[in-house]
């Protein structure tokens, strides 16, 4: 779960990390109540990255200019993400910018600091990046060590060390995937302030983080309506542009099935991994989600039952086909309780493909003959 900048900075402030004074507004008239003195910074609160380049950050020299900017910025949509509100802050007297983040490192299998003596950068494309494994249990020397490796000195070294330590504590205590300050600003007065903040909460940990309770639904704004519904139902749905709806159990098999569809000349309309052990109800919901995508002409169901019982899937199929007898279905169903499933489906007239490649080829064929609708058209 991605948080908005203002939410991330609120969490930073609670942890003792200095952030600029700020007000969150949505209407031009609210600007009159902001008493930081001009010039002010106005920042769109959007989930999407690259906000600055997209014109989502503006400076106002007085109230009049500010009001007009508020109106413009609130109307802005960045990479499909609507502006939720504006964060208003005094413009900082910046002497220097740093980058500081904590995340988990896949290769080392532990938390790391990512830091750079250059701030405000795209960290992925920077050469000047320091990565430091973080010891567990954590001790405050880790922050000092990092600050020293960044080449800092004196009071600034101690302030950055302290912020690094607090950032790690936020990362650990809140179960984050990422806690990022970019830029971390050193002011002309040697204050150190988190000018922008990004937090990604680990999705698997939200349920034990009481402070994020109830926030999840309002923070899925980059997802389509159906992707959001899938997430709430415990299904993994990613919608694509093609016309072959794909439903499998297991992420790897779903991706491999998509790849094969593409490989045999078809176009996947979605990724839908129903997960392991899905029952009839969940499978039916998954079928409906794939079916509702207006791009989809054919549904390819590929189940290799390990935990998933084929008879549960068959039950869902029977119900689904009653509801949607016109929907073209290609079904491959193998594994656990396959025999029962085959018996359940024998009266439906549905052809079962034991072989995955045959099923994929059939789906591609069926999709090609299905109305020749151009790819990408009619997407809701």
């Amino acid at each position, binding site marked *: 779960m991605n948080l908005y900048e203002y939410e991330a900075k609120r969490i930073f402030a609670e942890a003792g990390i200095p952030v600029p004074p700020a007000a969150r507004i949505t209407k031009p008239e609210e600007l009159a109540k902001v008493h930081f003195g001009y010039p002010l910074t106005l920042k769109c609160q959007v989930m999407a990255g690259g906000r600055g380049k997209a014109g989502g950050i503006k400076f106002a020299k007085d109230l009049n200019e500010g009001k007009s900017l508020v109106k413009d910025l609130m109307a802005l949509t960045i990479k499909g993400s609507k502006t939720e509100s504006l964060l208003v802050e005094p413009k900082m007297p910046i002497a220097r910018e740093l980058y500081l983040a904590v995340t988990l490192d896949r290769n080392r299998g*532990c938390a790391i600091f990512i830091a750079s003596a250059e701030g405000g950068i795209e960290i992925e494309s920077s050469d000047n990046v320091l990565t430091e494994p973080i010891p567990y249990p954590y001790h405050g020397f880790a922050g000092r060590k990092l600050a020293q490796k960044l080449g800092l000195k004196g009071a600034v070294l101690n302030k950055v060390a302290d912020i690094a330590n607090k950032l790690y504590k936020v990362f650990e205590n809140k*179960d984050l995937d990422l806690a990022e300050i970019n830029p971390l600003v050193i002011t002309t007065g040697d204050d150190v302030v988190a000018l922008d903040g990004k937090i990604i909460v680990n999705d698997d*940990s939200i349920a034990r983080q009481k402070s994020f309770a109830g926030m999840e639904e309002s923070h899925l704004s980059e997802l389509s309506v159906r992707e959001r519904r899938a997430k709430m139902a415990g299904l993994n749905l990613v919608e694509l542009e093609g016309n072959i709806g794909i439903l499998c159990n297991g*992420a*790897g*098999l779903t*991706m491999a099935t998509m790849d094969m569809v593409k*490989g045999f000349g078809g176009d996947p309309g979605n*990724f839908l991994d129903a997960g392991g052990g899905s029952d009839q109800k969940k499978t039916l919901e998954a079928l409906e989600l794939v079916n509702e995508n207006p791009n989809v002409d054919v549904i390819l169901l590929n189940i290799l039952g*390990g935990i998933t019982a084929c008879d549960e899937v068959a039950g869902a199929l029977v119900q689904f086909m009653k509801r949607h007898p016109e929907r073209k279905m290609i079904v491959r169903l193998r594994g656990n309780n396959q025999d029962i499933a085959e018996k359940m489906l024998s009266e439906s007239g549905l052809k079962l493909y034991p072989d995955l490649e045959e099923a994929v080829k059939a789906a591609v064929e069926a999709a090609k003959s299905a109305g020749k609708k151009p790819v990408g058209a009619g997407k809701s």
Partner: protein
Amino acid sequence: MILVDKNTKVIVQGATGKMGSAHTKRMIEYGTNIVGGTTPGKGGETIHGKPVFDTVLEAVEKTGATCSCIFVPPYLALDAGMEALDAGIKLLVLITEGMPPQDTAKLVAQVKAKDAKLIGPNCPGIITPGQSLIGILPGSIFKSGPVGMVSKSGTLTYEIALALTESGLGQSTCVGTGGDPIKGLDYKEVLSMFEADPATQVIVMIGEIGGNAEEDAADYIKANIKKPVIGFIAGQTAPPGKRMGHAGAIISGGKGTAESKLESFRSNGVLVAMTPKEVAQQAAEALKQPVKAK
């Protein structure tokens, strides 16, 4: 075979839960040497004829188990893993999906400190066909033979094992290392075990988008593995920035793409297959060739 055989004594942590119980039954039916289970507060009961203990320590003391298959809810997985390590368990097979990755990182650190091995989390487990199935894999798909498999995925592993089995090629051991970004055993460790295993003649490595473990493994293969390796990557059609089911399966910042992994396979001498059937064909082909000299 590697890691497990018919003598491996296995306990099941969370054996009396719904999933734990169902898979304990299956494992016993498969022939796995299940020696007991644990559920705190249910010590003294039995599950599918095996004794249930309150703690792993008690189970280890009374059964001599060296391996634990863990089915506990995600937020209890760290504690369960730590308990197993504390009790002297040397191979942890952690099936649980949805474990917080910071918990996994803590467990992984302790696994290293204790010189133990962890498979998972969020994994299907491990099978040495005909001898021992530890986890949730469907045993009937696998048969004994010369192909060693290592994979991040569950059902895709079954799909490829099925293709191998149907084309007459059995497996020495199949290891599902799991779909999480932070995890225990990785490709390189399993590859080195397969290299040393006389029963393995060819290796199938199944990867997916996200991270750079496949690229790392390809470099490792070039330097260290003489047996033929067939690589498969899922997610060639996955869009960037989207988590594809597995917590680890995401292309971010232009990194972790299928192209990068396939390119790395090709340039390091890993044979590339594009469908499960092709994996089986390539494996059959490779078995006919003499072993590479490096």
